[in-house]
């Protein structure tokens, strides 16, 4: 029972990886708390969370098979 967490841009410097897996947290608030404990530097970073490719603006329930992505400020183009 895991979820996949994709990491992009400058956040890959903190995770030293582009993808990690965690046991399924109840929701995105729980996930953030867990990530900020595991990766304290992340707490200072500006990033958005996407669940299944949709960015979220409030706490969102997570279920098995979800793909979560951590999106730092964009810089395409």
């Amino acid at each position, binding site marked *: 029972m895991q979820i996949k967490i994709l990491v992009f841009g400058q956040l890959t410097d903190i995770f030293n990886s582009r993808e990690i897996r965690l046991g399924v947290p109840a929701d995105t608030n729980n996930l953030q708390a867990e990530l900020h404990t595991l990766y304290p530097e992340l707490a200072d970073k500006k990033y958005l969370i996407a669940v299944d490719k949709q960015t979220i603006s409030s706490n969102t329930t997570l279920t098995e098979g979800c793909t979560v992505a951590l*999106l730092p400020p*964009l810089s395409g*183009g």
Partner: protein
Amino acid sequence: MSEKKFKNIFIEGPVTSAFVGESIAKHSAQTEIGAHSIFLGQVRKDVIENKTVAAIEYTTYKEMALEKMHQIREAIFTKYQLTCMHIHHSLGMVKAGDISLFVFASSPHRKAAIAACEEVVERIKTELPVWGKEVFEDNSYQWKENSITSKLSNL
């Protein structure tokens, strides 16, 4: 969790000027077109704290970017009378002076082509999950940030 395949916009490495020329040539048979508006993003050799940018390395969240690009494309075609629109964005290393973004909007009339091209460029810069790492000549780097990033949101 749709498995729908969206049109790919990404290419490995820079957009070449020859590719742009060939893309233009392909439109001469579409004789209802009266106006092409083209935007090209070129990597600047910026100097930041005495270090010179040698290249930008681009990465993306491809699945999300292609879905987002598809939504942007649909919105633009609904809003403007376009004949066609083509978008190409580089991934990987693009050297200073080379082109990393190519947006190409064509329409019977200039106002639609120009407005559509501009709007797509703005939306790409602010909504597409793409990241650029500015690699300096001494191989150190910093992560680039576009000025407005808050528009990435659910549609």
